[in-house]
C-alpha cells in the first residue's frame, strides 16, 4: 500500500531507493538505446546513450573542454562570490534594522519575482558580449535569494537567545557576532544554495544568448546543428555540476545545523 502507514517497517532491498531509482534509470537508458534502432522514435532528435558516450570521448580528446569549462566556471564563480559578499551583509543588515527593511524590501521582492534573465539583454548592452554580462546575470540571480533568505535567517533567530546574551551584558556587536550571525547561518546557506542553482542556469543561458566561448556557447553551436549527442554531454555536465554544488552546500547546511 501507501507509505502512509503509521508504523513503517525497514524497507527490504528491492524496495529501497537505491535499487528502484537505479533500476528505473537503467531501464530508461536501455529503452533510449533500443527505441531509435527499432524505429520507435526518431533517433535524429534524441540520440542514444552510446553516441553520447562516444561524443564524451571525442570532447575529452578535443582539448577545448578545459577552456570552455574554465570560462563558464570563472563567470559563475566570480558572479557568485560577489553575490555572497554583497548579498549576505545586506541581508543581515536588512534583517536587523526594521526601517531599512521596510524601505528596501519592496524593490528586493520585485527583483525576486522577476526572471533574472529578463535583465540579460540590458546587461549585454551595458557590459558587452564578454565575461562581464554573464557575471552580472549570475550576480543578480544569486544575490536576490541570498538577501531574502538572510533576512529571513536573522528574523528567525530565537529571541530568547538574544535576551539571554543581553542578560550577560553582551554588547550590540557581541550579540550580532555570537548570536545573530551564527543563528541565521542555516538560512543564509539555504539562500546560497538557491542562488547557486539560479546562477548555474543564468550563466549557461547567458552564454547561449550571446558569447564567444564557454559551455553555453558550445551548447548553442551543437544545438543549432542538431548534434544532440554532443549537446547532451554538455547538458549533463552542467546538471552534474549544479547537483554537486547544491549537494555540497546542503552538506554544509547539515553540518552547521548540528
Amino acid at each position, binding site marked *: *500500500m*501507501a*507509505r*502512509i*502507514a*503509521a508504523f513503517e517497517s525497514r*524497507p527490504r532491498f528491492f*524496495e*529501497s*531507493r537505491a535499487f*528502484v*531509482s537505479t533500476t528505473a*534509470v537503467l531501464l*530508461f537508458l536501455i529503452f533510449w538505446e533500443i527505441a531509435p534502432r527499432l524505429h520507435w522514435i526518431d533517433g535524429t*532528435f*534524441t540520440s542514444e546513450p552510446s553516441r553520447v558516450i562516444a561524443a564524451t570521448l571525442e570532447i575529452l580528446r578535443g582539448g577545448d573542454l578545459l577552456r570552455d569549462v574554465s570560462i563558464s566556471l570563472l563567470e559563475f564563480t566570480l558572479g557568485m562570490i560577489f553575490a555572497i559578499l554583497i548579498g549576505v551583509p545586506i541581508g543581515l543588515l536588512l534583517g536587523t534594522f526594521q*526601517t531599512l527593511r*521596510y*524601505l528596501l*524590501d*519592496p*524593490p528586493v*521582492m*520585485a*527583483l*525576486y*519575482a*522577476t*526572471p*533574472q*534573465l*529578463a535583465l*540579460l*539583454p*540590458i546587461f*549585454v*548592452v*551595458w557590459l558587452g558580449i564578454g565575461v562581464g554580462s554573464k557575471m552580472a546575470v549570475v550576480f543578480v540571480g544569486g544575490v536576490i535569494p541570498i538577501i531574502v533568505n538572510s533576512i529571513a535567517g536573522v528574523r528567525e533567530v530565537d529571541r530568547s537567545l538574544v535576551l539571554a546574551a543581553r542578560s550577560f551584558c553582551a554588547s550590540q556587536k557581541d550579540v550580532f557576532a555570537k548570536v545573530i550571525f551564527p543563528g541565521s547561518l542555516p538560512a543564509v546557506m539555504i539562500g546560497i544554495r538557491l542562488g547557486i*542553482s539560479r546562477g*548555474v*542556469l543564468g550563466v*549557461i*543561458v547567458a552564454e*547561449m*544568448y550571446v558569447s564567444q566561448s564557454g559551455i*553555453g556557447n558550445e*551548447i548553442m553551436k551543437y*544545438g*543549432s546543428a*542538431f548534434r*544532440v549527442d554532443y*549537446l547532451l554531454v*554538455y*547538458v*549533463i555536465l*552542467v*546538471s552534474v555540476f*549544479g*547537483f554537486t554544488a*547544491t549537494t555540497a552546500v546542503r552538506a554544509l547546511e547539515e553540518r552547521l545545523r548540528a
Partner: protein
Amino acid sequence: MKNAIQRSAPVTLGIASFVIILVIWELLVRVGWANPFFTSQPSAIASALARQIRTGELLRNFLVSFREFVMGFSAAVVVGLVLGVVAGWYRVIEYILDPFIWFLYSAPLIAFYPIFVIRLGLGSGTVIAISFLLSVTPIAVNTLTGMKNINPSLILAARSFGARPHDLLWKVALPASVPMIVAGLRLGVGRALTGVIIAELFVASSGLGYSISYNGQLLRTTNMFASLIVIVALGVACTQSLSALEARFDSWRTSPGV
C-alpha cells in the same frame, strides 16, 4: 496616532522606496551623471510605455507572453499535482521519478530548444513547453514533500476511527498537503514566467521577452526598460497573490500539537 503611523510604515516606506528610486534615477540622468543611452530615465520610459499602449504594441506583447505563461503554468499545475500526489502516496513511484525530476530541475532545458522547435515550431508552442517543464518541478516536488510530511498523529487518529486508504488520501493526506502545495505553486509561478522569458529570447517573434531582446539588439534601452517594467509588474502580481494564498492556508499546517 503613533500606532497608526507604525502600522502603515511598511506600506508607506515601501511606496516611498520606489518613488525615491525613480526620483534619484531621473535626477542622475538630468545632472549628467548617468548616460541616458545606457540607463534611460523614468520620464522617457513612461512616455515609451504610453506610446506602446496607444499603438496597442504593449497589449499585443503582453497578451502573447501572458497566454504562454498561463498555458504553461496551468499544464504544470495539473501534471505537477498528479505526479506529486501519486509519488507521495506510493513510495516506489517516488523512487522511480526522483532521478528524472532531479534532471529536470538542474538541467538547462533551454539547451534543447532546437528540438522543441522542430516538433512544436518557433513561437508559442516551444515557449509553452519550456515554461511547463521549468515550472512543473517545484510543484511536483512540493506536493510530494507535503504528502510525505503529514503529521503521523493525524493518520493514526484517522485509522483509529476506521479510515480506509481512500479516506486517508482524500480526508487527511490531500488537505494536509495544501500548505506545501501552495508554496510549490508560488515557486512554480516564478519559474513559469522565467521559462516564458528565456524561451522568448531565443525562439519567439513577439512577446515581452522577445521585445526586450529585439530592442536590445537595436540598443533601444528605453523600450527595453518599458517591457522590463511590465514583466516585473506581472511577476510581482503573480507572486504576491500566491503569497497571499499561502498565508491564507497557513493555519492548515499539521505541525505536531495542532
